[in-house]
C-alpha cells in the first residue's frame, strides 16, 4: 500500500506535470529546429511568435464566447486554434517577405539573420503588448479536472490523490497527434522529403529541381502551426503572459540543442529531457521516502537536490554539459 502511495505521489507531482510541460517545450523545440534546419538561423523571436499566435487565439476565444459558441467540456480555445493558425501564417509570411527574404537571397551569414530575428522579436513583442497588454490572462474554460484528487482517493482508497487536469490530457493528446502527423509528413510525403533534402544540402536539393520558395513557404506554415498550438497549449495549462512566453524561449532553445539542432525527433525528445530533469532535480522527495522507507530511517530535510528557484538553471546547466561533451546534441543534429 505504501509503495502504491509512493508511486501515485511521483505520478501526481512529477510524471504528469513533466509530461505536459515537456510536450509544450517539445513543440517549441521542433519549431526552433525546423527554422534552424531549413532557414538556417537561430530564431530569437521564437517565444514572441508563440505569444503572437496565442494572442490571436485568445481574441478568437473571446469572440466565440461572446457569441455563445462553446464546445462543451473542452476549452473554447481549441476551436479558435485553426483561425489563429491562419493569422499566424499570414504574419509569418509577411515577416518573411519584408525581413528575412532579403537576407536569405543575399546569403547573409547566420549571425546576421539571428540579429534580424532580434528586431522581429522587438516588433512582435510590441505588437502583442499593444494589442492585448502585458498582464496575465487566463482563457481556459470548460471542465478543469479529468480526475480530481479527492475523487481518486475515494475511488482507490489510497492516501495520495492523483489529480489530472484536462489541460494536461489535452496537451499530451494534441502533441501526439501533431508530432506524429509532422513526422509522417516529413518522412513519407514528397514535400516533406524535399524539405529534408533542402535542409541536408541546399545546393544538391536545388540541382534536383526542388523549389526553394515552396520549401520556405511550407516551413513558415508548419512553423505557424507549431507556434500557435504550442503557445495555446502552454497558455491553457498555465496562463498567457507575454513576458513568460519570451522567457520560455530559453528552455526551448535548450531542448532543441540538447536534442541535436536541426533534428526534429531530437528536439521532440529534448523537450522531455529538459522538462523531466527540471522537475526531477527540484522536487522535494521527503514524502516519497516517508512512504517507502521504514519509520526509523525517515529523512529530516526536504531531500531536495536543488531549490525550485533553480528550475531554469537546471536546464541551462544540462545544455552547457551537452555542449561540452557532445556539441552535436544527444541525437546527432548538425555539427556545430
Amino acid at each position, binding site marked *: 500500500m505504501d509503495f502504491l502511495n509512493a508511486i501515485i505521489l511521483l505520478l501526481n507531482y512529477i510524471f504528469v506535470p513533466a509530461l505536459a510541460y515537456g510536450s509544450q517545450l517539445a513543440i517549441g523545440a521542433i519549431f526552433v529546429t525546423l527554422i534552424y534546419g531549413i532557414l538556417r538561423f537561430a530564431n530569437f523571436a521564437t517565444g514572441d511568435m508563440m505569444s503572437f499566435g496565442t494572442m490571436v487565439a485568445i481574441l478568437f476565444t473571446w469572440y466565440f464566447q461572446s457569441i455563445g459558441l462553446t464546445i462543451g467540456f473542452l476549452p473554447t480555445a481549441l476551436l479558435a486554434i485553426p483561425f489563429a493558425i491562419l493569422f499566424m501564417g499570414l504574419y509569418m509570411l509577411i515577416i518573411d517577405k519584408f525581413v528575412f527574404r532579403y537576407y536569405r537571397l543575399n546569403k547573409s551569414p547566420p549571425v*546576421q539573420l539571428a540579429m534580424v530575428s532580434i528586431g*522581429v522579436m522587438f516588433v*512582435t513583442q510590441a505588437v502583442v503588448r499593444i494589442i492585448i497588454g502585458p498582464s496575465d490572462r487566463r482563457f481556459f474554460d470548460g471542465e478543469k479536472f479529468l480526475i480530481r484528487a479527492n475523487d481518486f482517493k475515494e475511488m482507490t482508497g489510497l492516501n495520495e490523490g492523483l489529480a489530472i487536469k484536462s489541460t494536461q490530457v489535452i496537451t499530451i493528446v494534441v502533441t501526439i497527434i501533431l508530432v506524429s502527423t509532422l513526422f509522417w509528413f516529413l518522412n513519407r510525403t514528397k514535400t516533406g522529403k524535399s524539405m529534408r533534402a533542402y535542409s541536408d544540402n541546399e545546393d544538391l536539393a536545388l540541382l534536383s529541381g526542388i523549389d526553394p520558395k515552396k520549401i520556405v513557404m511550407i516551413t513558415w506554415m508548419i512553423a505557424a502551426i507549431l507556434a500557435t498550438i504550442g503557445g495555446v497549449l502552454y497558455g491553457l495549462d498555465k496562463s498567457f503572459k507575454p513576458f513568460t512566453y519570451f522567457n520560455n524561449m530559453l528552455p526551448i532553445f535548450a531542448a532543441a540543442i540538447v536534442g541535436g539542432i536541426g533534428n526534429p525527433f531530437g528536439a521532440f525528445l529534448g523537450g522531455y529531457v529538459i522538462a523531466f530533469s527540471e522537475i526531477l532535480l527540484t522536487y522535494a522527495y521527503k514524502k516519497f521516502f516517508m512512504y517507502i522507507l521504514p519509520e526509523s530511517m525517515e529523512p529530516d530535510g526536504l531531500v531536495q537536490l536543488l531549490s525550485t528557484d533553480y528550475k531554469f538553471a537546471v536546464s541551462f546547466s544540462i545544455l552547457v554539459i551537452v555542449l561540452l561533451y557532445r556539441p552535436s546534441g544527444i541525437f546527432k543534429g548538425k555539427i*556545430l
Partner: protein
Amino acid sequence: MRKNLNVIAAYSIMMGLIILVGIFQSWNIALSIFNLCLISAVMTMGANIQWGYAGLINFGIMGFTALGGLAAVLISVNPVQEAWSAGGTNILLSLFLIIGIVLAVRFVLKRYQKSKIRNYIIAAIIISGIIIIRLVSEPGIEAIEEVNPARTGFLGGLGLPIIFSWIVGAFFAGGLAFVIGKVALGLRADYLAIATLLISEIVIAIIKHEDWLTRGVKNVIGLKRPAPYEVNLQETEWFINLVEKFNSGKLALISDLSERQAALNQFVIEGSSVFVKLCYSGLFLVVVIILLILTQKALYSPWGRMMRAIRDNEEAANAMGKNVVKQHLLIFVLGSAIVGIAGAMLVTQDGLFTPGSYRPLRYTFLIWVMVIVGGSGNNFGAILGGFVVWFLWIESAPIGLYLVNLTTAGLEDTHFLKVHLIESVPYFRFLMMGIGLLLIMRYRPKGILPEKIEIK
C-alpha cells in the same frame, strides 16, 4: 578634420537633443538620460570590443552587468558582524571546498588519459562535492539569513568606498568570462550566442536566490555614494550661495523677501539634485574617456590589426601563426570586464541593487541594438549607439503619446481605441527599437558611423 565631420556632426546632434530635453522638460531628466547614456556607452564599448573587433557574439551581457552590480554591493556595504559570526565559517569552508573540487578535477584531467573512467571520476568528484558543500553550507546559510532578516540577513561587504567596485566589478566579470570562454568559445557563432544567453540566466538565478550573499529579491538599498547627498548639499553654505549667484537674475525679479526666500529654497532643492547628477556625469565621463582612449589605441595597434585579421579570416590568421583560441579568450575577457565596470557604475548611480530587475531584454538585447545601430567595430559609433538608443528608449513614450494623439485626433477622448492606445504607449519603445534595428540592418548594415580602418 574633414574626414571626422560625420562623427562630429552626429555627436553634436545628440548633445543638442539632450540639451533640448533639458530646456523643454527639465535639466534633471536631461542629466539622468545623459548619465545612463554614458553607462550604456561603456556597455556598448565592451560589446563592441567582442563583436566589432573579434566577431564574437556575447548575449550574456546581462550576467556581466549583474556581476558588476554584485561587486558594488560586496565592496561598499558594511560587513554584518553578527552574520559572519553566525555562519561565516561554514561559508568559508564551502569556499575552500569549491577550490578543492576544482583542483581535484584539474588534477584528474592532467594525470589520467582521456577515457570513460576519467569522465566518471570527474562526475563523481563534482556530485559528491556538491552534496558535501550543501551539507556544510546549509546551516551557515540558514543562520546568516536569520540575522535580522528585515534589514540585513546577508554577509554584507567590505565597507570600502564604492568607487573601488568599478575595478572589482571588472575583475568579477572578467573571471566569469574566462570560465565561459574556456567552455563555450569553441562553438559556432550562433551557438555561442545561445550558450552565453543561458549562462547569464544561470548567473542571474544565483544572484536572485542566494540570499546570504546578495539578499536576493529583497534588494540592497542605500548603498554608499561617491557623490554628496542632496540633503547635505541643501544645508551647505557655499552651495546655497552658488545657486543664488546662478539664479540671481530670476531672483532679482521677485520683490517680496519671503517669496524670494521660498523661490531660492526651490532653486536649491532642484539645484542639489542637478549638482549630484553632474558629479556622476563627471565620474562617468572620466571612465568613458579613459576607455575610449585605451580602446582606440588598441584598435590601431598591431594587436588590433591581428584581431581584425582573425575576425575576417580565422584560417588565414591561424596559418600565419596567430593563436586564435587564446586571442578570442583574451578579447572575450576584456570586453566582459568593461561590461562589468558598467554594471558597477549603474548600481553606484542608482544606489540600490535589485537582482529582479536584470532582464535580458533591457540588459542584453537593447545593448546589442545599440552596438548594431551605432556601428560595430567603430568605438565612436558604439558610444553614439548607446546615446541614440538610450535617448529613444526614454523619449519614445512622449513621442508615442504625441503620435497617438495626432493619429486619433478625430476620435473622442473616451473612445475605447484611443484610451487603449494611450494606455499602451510605454510599449511603443519596443516597436521603435525593433523597427529601428530592422531598418539599420537592411539599409545601413554597418551602422550610423561605420567602421573605417586607416593604415597609419
